[in-house]
């Protein structure tokens, strides 16, 4: 039997989508890193299509985009934790999150996954999480939100 161990992280990137699961993963990250005092970086990516230049003045003026990170900072403050908030514009959310995690030398990437199904009932995982699972150099934790009652 391999010896059970609790991994210790130095720096964790939390990918925030603006969904209801964001609060839960910020709390989880704060709880997990409470004793190791790991650095926490919350990243929210605003995806731009090719009709706009990458440095277009979109995310900075978007109250919704800013609010995603502000809410995470609020949770951290309530839990007496520290969190750096980073707002990113990119063409692809998954690539931007993985690149940000790699650039910051993170050893953990935490992502939230809403429980959604496609037409026909097949579970939809989206594109960003499979990309991160395949390409992220660090550990990746995916936290799926509970199924709604109608899904049970």
């Amino acid at each position, binding site marked *: 039997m391999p010896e059970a161990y609790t991994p210790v992280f130095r720096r964790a990137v939390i990918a925030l989508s603006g969904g209801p699961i964001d609060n839960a993963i910020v709390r989880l990250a704060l709880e997990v890193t409470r004793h190791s005092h790991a650095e926490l970086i919350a990243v929210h990516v605003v995806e731009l299509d090719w009709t706009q230049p990458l440095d277009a003045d979109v995310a900075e003026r978007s109250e919704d985009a800013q609010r995603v990170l502000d809410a995470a900072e609020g949770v951290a403050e309530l839990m007496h934790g520290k969190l750096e908030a980073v707002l990113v514009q990119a063409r692809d959310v998954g*690539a931007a999150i993985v690149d940000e995690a790699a650039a910051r030398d993170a050893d953990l990437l935490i992502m939230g996954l809403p429980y959604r199904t496609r037409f026909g009932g097949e579970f939809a995982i989206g594109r960003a999480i499979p990309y991160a699972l395949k390409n992220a150099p660090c550990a990746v934790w995916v936290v799926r939100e509970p199924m709604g009652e109608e899904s049970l």
Partner: protein
Amino acid sequence: MTAPRSPLHGRKLGDRRVVVDRPHAAYFRYAGDGTMVAKAAASGPTSVVGKRVARVRSFIFGKPLTNAQEIGERLSKKLALPIFSSDAISSSAYATDEILRVLVLAGIAWMTWSIWVAAAIALMLTIVAFSYRQVCRGYPSGGGAYVVARENLGPNFGLVAAAALMVDYVMTVAVSSASALANLATAFEGIAPYKVELGALIIVLVTAANLRGIRESGNIFAIPTYMFVGMALLAIVVGLVNTATGAAHHLAAPPFAEQPGVQAFTILLLLKAFAGGSVALTGVEAIANGVPAFKPPEAKNAANTLIIMAVLLGTIFIGLTFVGLQYGVQATTAQGPTVLGQVGSAVFGGGFLFIMLQISAALILFLACNTSFNAFPRLAAILAQDDCMPRQFAFRGDRLAFSWGIVVLAAVAIAMLYAFNASVDALIPLYSVGVFICFTLSQAGMVIHWRKERSSGWAWRSLVNGFGAILTGVVFLVVAYEKFGNGAWMVLIFIPTLIAMMVFVRHQYASSARQLEMRPGSAVPQPHRHNRVVIPIPGVNRATVQALNVARSITTDIRAVYVSDDAEKTDAVRERWANAVPDVPLVVVESPYRALIAPFVAYLDVLDRTWPNDSEKPITFVLIPEYVARSWWERILYNQAAKQLRATLLGRAHTVVINIPYRRDESRAAASAAEVEPAGTLVAADNGRGH
């Protein structure tokens, strides 16, 4: 974007991303629907001195708390009990003395009646506590007797209750600090000459503790209260055991015992003893005033805490009176041992436990004023919300405490200490008069409350409250009659004066609200009055040009006014102005008496008078160019005339005063904005002069 950034390359070819600035994040947080919440950085001082002051404040009073942290500052029952009950529970330490002091006037034999008097007071305590328990539940926003009287008897009765309570809270602080010092002075005679200063110091320390927030002050003050309760209950239990086992024997008369009198034992004497012992009830109302300070469910927790307090107070009071009776304790003069001291000495035999009992009694008497520091500011805040007190009283300070109420209470109590030379004998007649007024009003209010509500059991509840109102009303009359000549008359002057002040404040706020009120649903029309700008200029310089540019954005009716006492300089200014700003008229006001402000104001008067009477007066914008000082000494050198002018013009009809600040680092921008040639020459000629 505030600062365009070059895209960062990703791990794969073609992956790029841009990290976006979040300029608001240091100061604000978006909370949805166009709402921004200010962070600590946005609420703190920006100047160097301000930051230093904030650091010192933070060290003394603790770090500022947010509104969201208010729930964390709420009190649990075990913390609320000492905070709101130290006054009430401490009164059990001397209430029996007050009864015995009256009964002894009829002779030693009649002192056995003390237990019946104490029982009657305990019955009154039960009724009052029952009533306030209902108040907690019925009026969970706090306010106690004030709110009950306001809602059921009318706003003016509410003000009577509020004024009476406030006077009593001030007196509690003054009396408790004075009596604590009187106790200390018996042990350390050297402090007697400094009683006032030391009393003030005690009040300042308790104020500082309360400004740190209710929870922290509770932590500080909880131990003495619980210590006293524990020691007093232990003394009672040991005394009862001794009584049951026949070990309790009558003591010899204590030193400084009150001499037995030969008065007839009449109903009046009994009533006086009852009124004397009723001081035990002071402070009972504090919990009902502070319901919102409790953890949820606030009303339930407050009501339960009130019952615990009443049970403890009643038990200690009756217990000490009963045990004291078994040991034959007697009332003494101020120099002699108290009933509590005699009981403690009898049951503990003067050892360690006796010393602990005395220390705990001294400490709780010392800190009885803390109840006022919690109840008074809350009452003042509710009154301020009702526009009966200045609105500052409703503002919470950095630590969520009602700082204004705390500081004002401390200041008035210190003033009382100075006025009465910290003499307990002089202060005590003013004490506990007001509280019976508010007991009476709250009970009377509850009678009407039950009658209006007609809920289950309303009839017997209103009967109990009606009986309580009569009882406390009688006690008020007896207390007021007994203490009137000794100083209670002052309370009966203070209370109406306070009521008059509150009525005045309420009238002022109502009057201003009427004047400011907009008709509901009315659309704001476009402005239709003529605007004109007058710029008082100290010369022609960049600050003047900046003011001129602002003026041009307001209207085309602009004139500059130069008040001068120097003809040569005037010509130079006029010439330069004509060259630099030919489209704006310059009015020169020569001032042979060298005054600067008055001739300018007179010019504005003349402008107003020349306006046709049949049309609405224009709005005159007075734009005052100001040089922004960068240091304290620059503040002395510049803008003195501008400050005077601003002060003079504030409140002037049809006039808007605007400061146009000119900063040195704006020199380049101003120079380019100014269409004067050559700008450098102008600045060199007049820079800063005359500001």
